[in-house]
């Protein structure tokens, strides 16, 4: 009995030492990584001719002439390693922490912005629709951030397990968006609640495990970095 206790004690000490060492190394390396990049990152100014700047306090900028709606977001690093069907979601919506990009503007203002630039919603999806592609005006969606130096297609920032590509549409769904208050601005498969979603994947593709989406760590900046998402009417 005594032998067993000593053996357990020795094993415990070895394990503790190993785990402690790994923990200290991991936390030390973690403290240094990407911190400077995050702190220096500020969203770029609206380059579409207006003087408005997209920021946390001015999270949605509408440019009727350029037919664009810009949304201030921040990267959620969680979805570099976990799958999600949410691309851009308002932070205070019920899905606020479930998306690759966390938006500061809400889905209802965003909807109104798309209507203001002349986009027509599809409104063809019901909550129980299965295998139906979202309709509505097609949108060019791009992302940029301080240091990116250019607009990058939104699809490049997302890993789609099927590699089908992206076809973003103004789905509409204003009533569902208000009633459910999920905060969904852009869904990665066709969605009856999201204001915009991806027609390349019909409804329930993610739920039925046909497609899986993650943030592309090789394209997107580090967790917490401000990113401006531009929705342009095609």
């Amino acid at each position: 009995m005594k032998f067993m206790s000593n053996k357990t004690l020795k094993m415990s000490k070895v394990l503790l030492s190993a785990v402690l060492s790994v923990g200290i190394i991991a936390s030390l390396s973690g403290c240094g990584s990407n911190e400077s990049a995050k702190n220096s990152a500020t969203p770029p100014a609206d380059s579409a001719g207006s003087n408005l700047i997209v920021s946390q306090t001015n999270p949605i900028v509408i440019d009727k002439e350029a037919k664009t709606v810009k949304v201030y977001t921040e990267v959620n690093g969680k979805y570099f390693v976990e799958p999600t069907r949410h691309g851009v979601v308002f932070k205070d919506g019920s899905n606020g922490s479930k998306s690759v990009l966390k938006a500061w503007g809400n889905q209802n203002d965003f909807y109104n912005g798309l209507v203001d630039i002349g986009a027509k919603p599809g409104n063809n999806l019901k909550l129980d629709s299965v295998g139906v592609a979202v309709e509505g005006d097609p949108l060019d969606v791009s992302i940029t951030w301080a240091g990116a130096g250019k607009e990058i297609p939104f699809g490049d920032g997302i890993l789609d397990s099927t590699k089908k590509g992206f076809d973003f549409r103004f789905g509409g769904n204003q009533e569902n968006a208000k009633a459910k208050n999920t905060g969904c601005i852009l869904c990665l498969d066709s969605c009856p609640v999201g204001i915009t979603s991806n027609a390349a994947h019909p409804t329930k593709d993610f739920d039925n495990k046909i497609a899986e989406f993650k943030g592309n760590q090789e394209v997107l900046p580090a967790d917490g970095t401000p990113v401006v998402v531009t929705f342009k009417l095609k």
Partner: protein
Amino acid sequence: MNTKQRKWLNVLGSGLLGFNFGFVAALLLAQWTWLELRVNTGLAILVGVGIGLGIGLLRTIKRPLAVESISLLAMLISLLGIGDAQISSLKILTGYTIREGLLMPDISLQVANLIFSLLTLGSILSAIVLKRKISG
């Protein structure tokens, strides 16, 4: 250390052990995508801490080092398994689990990882002190 201090150290140690096991539960629950996209699976950490504190109030931890080792091993195995043993994935996994579990969504992953390291270190230290008190 008097009896009262020892009792509260036992409660603290047990609470930190609950944190370790709750963290493992949160990591594993987050792998169930359906659940993860509907609820905050990180709350398993707070549940674990609550259960740990409750147990600590009612019972004395008899083998603190052994239980601590089991909890750390469970953390290590689940982290390495889920994160494919990649340091970058490990940092994200621990960071987001902590910031969601402790209901601090706006802190950076780096700060969350620091909190995780401190709490884990605290649980190790409390287990060592408890063991010494039992032996002594």
